[in-house]
């Protein structure tokens, strides 16, 4: 060991970036280049730098112990035994009057060589075996059971035997420890390499005809350096603790040679007279282990940074001025006409903000307003990223972390939910508002039976006992048209088909007798035939229970099937709202028109589908004028000059300059 830092050369050797290791003439399929080196990135982590400095100091002091140590390791001064720190002995003396600081320096030598031996042995065995197990099925069939077997061998017994065999030769025990730790490391290497081996660029390298060896060395090993180094740092930490433990038991170095563990044992023997000696001896061991672990963490983080995509600079401009200049479509807070059912949900000017790139707040929903009457069905349509789901979550009161409401109100039964406390808000969920999500499989806890799931919700909402809740759960399963509810109640989510799981999720949502069901893309993940069944079920349930449904979808077919009224959302705004039939027949907003033209179900056979160019701008990158201007075929200078107000009749309105207050259908181009 000549380098001041022990970890650095090891890190270099393991990155596999060394060109000498690559077979000649091998062209990398993906050449990661232009990144700062691992060492340079490591230096940006202050904790890792501190750990590196500490370890470097320990290594230097150990190597040059004869130079730096003020006393020899065996130099006893029986006139000054068990001294606390003084100017002469700045860490005090032990029971024979030997200088503790000097002995710690000499004791670092067996500790560090022992750790180095264990780490090298473990790495040399585990890395090639782990890599070959990951890249070759044949090798894996031998390696994996063998690893399972070897990991169960009690290491301490083998270590004791090795120490007896080699007459307390500590390095032999440390090498044996390396062998015994290797199986665990093989698992880590294999698991990490398996994930990388599944990535497309490794598959591509295979297709190009690279040998397994070249792939392992050039494409897989560099990518798994991080996990390997982290685990080697843990191996090193364990090795140091084992070395200290063996020396503490007096099984390591021959006395009176100095060792850290032996010094702790000396301290314990003198404990009845003085316990100062425990402090420096324990601290130096703990400090070194901490440094090894922190260095490992730093290497992991630095490696992860190296493979991360370069962060795109935040080009976005906050849309605050747009929000400030927005024209609100205020509605008169009119009394409800007698023939209309009462308003269940009134969302007014709702604005939701998330922390955007660079920490600047970005709006994801801007000035969204709509009403939903009891028993009414409303669809929200738009592409991904338009704020549909976020609107649903805001109504539920379950915005993702960091997102919060910065404007407007959500009135449920006339009470503003945005001012409610968390508990009061939670009380509305399930009983007043329920939710059905997109992925039915992911929406059910895999560890609970279908019946247990629904019964839990029933008990929460009705306070029913176990048996009645169970009966009610079976009833609910029948209500969602599951043919054998008793049997299905005993099943686990993984035993259900997608359509069945969605029916179960709907039954779960019905458990509290909600008056509003928010269904977020409830059919997207299902087969086409099952989609139709679920939509029919929702319509039937809506009629049976009289609950209102807020359907979030990108599918006009689903919305047309279920919803009387529709909101079209684009880039956080409602761009059009009105009766579904009217919007489908005569869309006012160019975005609605584009969406409808791109819908395969509504297309004319034989005519090519029209696809809108471009994509939805990300939150924080919305223009101050019309959000849709960049993709709009009718865009004018006025559109981008200032925010667009909502216009139209009370029944059918849109956020477009071409919309006149009067009803007027323009000819399509």
């Amino acid at each position, binding site marked *: 060991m000549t380098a001041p830092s022990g970890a650095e050369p090891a890190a270099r050797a393991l990155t596999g970036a060394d060109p000498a290791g690559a077979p000649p003439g091998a062209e990398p399929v993906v050449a990661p280049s232009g990144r700062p080196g691992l060492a340079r990135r490591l230096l940006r982590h202050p904790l890792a730098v501190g750990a590196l400095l500490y370890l470097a100091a320990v290594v230097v002091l150990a190597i040059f112990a004869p130079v730096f140590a003020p006393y020899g390791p065996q130099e006893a001064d029986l006139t000054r035994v068990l001294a606390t720190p003084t100017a002469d002995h700045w860490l005090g003396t032990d029971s024979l009057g030997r200088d503790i600081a000097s002995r710690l320096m000499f004791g670092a030598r067996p500790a560090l060589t022992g750790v180095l031996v264990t780490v090298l042995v473990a790495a040399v065995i585990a890395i090639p075996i782990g890599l070959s197990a990951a890249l070759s099925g044949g090798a894996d069939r031998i390696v994996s059971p063998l690893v399972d*077997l070897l990991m*169960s*061998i*009690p290491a*301490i*017994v*083998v270590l*004791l*035997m*090795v120490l*007896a*065999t080699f007459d307390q030769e500590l390095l032999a025990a440390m090498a044996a420890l390396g062998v015994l730790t290797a199986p665990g490391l093989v698992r880590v290497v294999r698991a990490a390499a398996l994930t990388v081996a599944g990535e497309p660029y490794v598959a591509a390298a295979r297709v190009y005809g690279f040998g397994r060896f070249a792939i392992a060395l050039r494409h897989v090993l560099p990518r798994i350096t991080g996990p390997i180094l982290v685990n080697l740092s843990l191996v090193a*930490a364990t090795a140091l603790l*084992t070395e200290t*433990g063996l020396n*503490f*038991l007096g*099984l390591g170095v021959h006395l009176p040679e100095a060792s850290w563990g032996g010094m*702790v044992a000396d*301290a*314990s023997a003198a*404990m*009845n007279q003085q*316990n100062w000696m*425990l402090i420096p*001896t*324990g601290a130096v*061991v*703990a*400090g070194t*282990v*901490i440094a090894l*672990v*922190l260095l490992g963490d730093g290497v992991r983080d630095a490696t992860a940074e190296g493979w991360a995509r370069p962060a795109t600079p935040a080009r976005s401009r906050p849309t605050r001025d747009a929000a400030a200049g927005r024209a609100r479509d205020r509605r008169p807070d009119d009394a409800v006409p007698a023939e209309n059912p009462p308003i269940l949900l009134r969302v007014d000017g709702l604005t939701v903000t998330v922390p955007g790139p660079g920490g600047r707040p970005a709006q994801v929903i801007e000035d969204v307003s709509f009403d939903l009457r009891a028993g009414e069905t409303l669809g929200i349509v738009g592409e991904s990223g338009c704020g549909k789901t976020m609107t649903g979550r805001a109504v539920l009161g*379950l915005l993702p972390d960091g997102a919060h409401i910065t404007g407007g109100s959500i009135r449920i039964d006339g009470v503003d939910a945005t001012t409610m406390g968390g508990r009061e808000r*939670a*009380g509305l*969920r*399930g009983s007043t508002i*329920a*939710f059905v*999500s997109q*992925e039915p499989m*992911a*929406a*059910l*806890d*895999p*560890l609970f039976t279908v019946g247990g799931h629904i019964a*839990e*919700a029933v008990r*929460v*909402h009705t306070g029913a006992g176990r048996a009645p809740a169970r009966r009610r759960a079976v009833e609910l399963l029948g209500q969602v048209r599951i043919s054998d509810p008793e049997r299905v109640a005993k099943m*686990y989510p*993984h*035993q259900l088909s997608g359509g069945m799981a969605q029916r179960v*999720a709907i039954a*779960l*949502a019905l458990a509290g007798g909600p008056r509003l069901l*928010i269904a977020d893309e409830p059919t997207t993940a299902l087969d086409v035939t099952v989609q139709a069944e679920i939509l029919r079920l929702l319509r039937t349930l809506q009629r049976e229970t009289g609950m209102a449904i807020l359907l979030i979808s990108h599918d006009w077919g689903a919305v047309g099937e279920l919803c009387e009224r529709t909101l079209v959302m684009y880039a956080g705004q409602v761009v059009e709202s009105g009766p579904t039939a009217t919007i489908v027949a005569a869309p006012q907003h160019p975005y609605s028109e584009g969406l409808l033209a791109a819908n395969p179900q509504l297309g004319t056979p034989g005519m090519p589908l029209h696809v809108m160019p471009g994509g939805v701008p990300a939150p924080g990158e919305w223009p101050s004028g019309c959000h849709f201007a960049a993709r709009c075929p009718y865009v004018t200078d006025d559109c981008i000059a200032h925010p667009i107000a909502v216009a139209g009749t009370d029944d059918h309105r849109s956020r477009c300059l071409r919309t006149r207050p009067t009803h007027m259908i323009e000819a399509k181009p």
Partner: protein
Amino acid sequence: MKRILMRRLLLSVPLLFVVSVVVFVLQSLIPGDAASQLAGLQATQEDVLRLRRQLDLDEPIWTQYWHWLNGVFHGSLGTSLTNREAVTTALGTRLPVTLSLVLGATVFATVLGVVLGVASSRAGSLAGRLVDLLSVGGLAIPSFWLGLLLISLLSVRLGLLPATGYVKFADSPDGWARSLLLPVSALALGGVTAIAKQTREAMLDVLRRPYIDNLRANGVPERRVVFKHALRGAAIPICTMSSILLVGALGGSVVIEQVFGLPGLGGLAVSATGSKDIPVIQGVAVYFTLLVVAANFLTDIAYALIDPRVRAS
């Protein structure tokens, strides 16, 4: 599920075989043998040879192994070379000590670790950083050093608990608990932080899953979401960590028994290694391996109890 358990049981047979062969081969390499140790320094060459013949140490290693294996099938692990005591008897008196220590430390670490981990997963990122910090500390502090510190503070200075020695549970349950409290704590500390970190990460992972969201959205109270659904979802990695701790605690117990003067298997292994008492070492190896096998077996059963998908496979 049954197949997994069967496979586990079947694997334990070659495991025990491998361990016993490794121990036998290693011991044959040890210079000197029990005969020369027993005969003492004054003994003549004939004395040693006679003793060696008496102890069957003059036979080839494979014959010796065959004798030992034969004994195993008849329920005997041989007799100690140093005091002619049956190995099963010697181990039997010491097994409860080691079991109390190792199981105590595992249970202590798991319970406390889960409590800390759940608490920190519910508190903000600051608590997470604190757990990270503590887990580095828990890993770094050698258990025997912590044991000495506990003795020095709680026993020597404050006189609250006995510093060393073991009281049998049958003699005095209270004394048993008092004699184990310090060693179990010293052995468990590293485990507490490891379990806390594992629990925190597993909880955060589960709490991000869509079904948790769906439960909340349909009105299941937060307390139930956390303790009934998220904690159960996090239970498998916690069990894995627990069983890893138990196996690690077997090794750690050797040192901790020495610190606290507990008459367990570890101390026996150390002294038997010193006197080259092969049947005893072999017996300790077999017992430790059986404990590992039992731990793995229990872990598999726990997985199956937690996750229906494991039961099905």
